[in-house]
């Protein structure tokens, strides 16, 4: 999909207009951002917005996230175990210390 984020009042109101008129191409509206279908029409709308507001429109192309393909098993297991931790208040760093779960710094420095 195409992610369109706006960074000014005027860009935001243009985006709102586009979303209203072209419902079929808009997958989701998220306040000052929107997801467009990954079609030429989606691209066309994104480009028009960028043309109109060159400095305040960002267009990104998103990819489906498949954790089984993109993410190491240790990270998946850490997420599952941390969400099922016994005490809600335990911070992750403390939770991971002394276990096989990755350290927060490792997580931050390892790209997918």
């Amino acid at each position, binding site marked *: 999909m195409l992610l369109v984020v706006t960074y000014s009042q005027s860009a935001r109101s243009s985006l709102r207009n586009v979303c209203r008129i072209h419902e079929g191409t808009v*997958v*989701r509206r998220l306040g000052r951002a929107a997801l467009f279908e990954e079609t030429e029409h989606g691209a066309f709308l994104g480009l028009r917005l960028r043309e109109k507001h060159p400095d305040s429109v960002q267009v990104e192309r998103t990819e*489906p996230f*498949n*954790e*089984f*393909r993109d993410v190491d098993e240790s990270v998946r297991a850490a997420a599952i175990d941390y969400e099922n931790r016994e005490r809600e208040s335990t911070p992750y760093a403390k939770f991971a210390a002394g276990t096989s779960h990755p350290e927060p710094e490792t997580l931050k420095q390892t790209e997918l």
Partner: protein
Amino acid sequence: MRVDLSSYDLDPAAVATTVRAADGPFELEPTAAHEHVGCITPEMEFDRRAAMAAAARTRDVTTTVDDALASAREERRELEPIDPETTDARRRVAEAAAELDELREEVAAKRGRLNAHREHGDGNKAEAEYLDAVRSLSEAETEYAAAVEQLEEAEAAARKARDERERQLQLVDRIDNLQRTAREERVDAIRPAVEDAVRAAPGDSTELATADGPTAAMALARVSELRAPVVLSCRRFSDVETAGRWLDASVIRL
């Protein structure tokens, strides 16, 4: 029903609770207004605005948003987003892709071996292994294509469910707004009758805003349909009959 129980030492709140109980002594369930003004005591205070809205509801006051509210609630009830399971589909794609990569390497390796053997003129075994690997690769390609298709279907269903969830959120906001509007309109519609009742009440109150708690409650009880006796423990009327006539309700006097 007009009963004077003032010779007994009864707790008004306890009597009101009994009156309101679902399995209580009265055939009809007391209306929402009874919660607000069904128990009138000397020191009472209550949310007058909420009581007015409840009073108006008992009088079937209609508002300009009734239809919109009904249809929004109806739509809200009908929306039941079913969230499809996409995890297994993602896992299947990932596994099929890994398998595919592995088999591609295997085919390339076996092709190399086959070529080497052919140069030496003894390629039969290597050829069979190569053909085996090609067959496995072809099967893996089919499996991968099927997995991708299944994931696409699951994601399309997930997207539809998210559309419905978003619609639900919009409807909840819309219903909240409409309820607010309806309440304001109901309060406005019932206000003249309540103000009249305040002025007609025993005492010298002239408006709801400045009337004491019991006076405001009596006025609201008078304009409400309560369907159950008012529990009255303040002495504003000479007797229970007078109170009942003025309140236009059954009364239990304590």
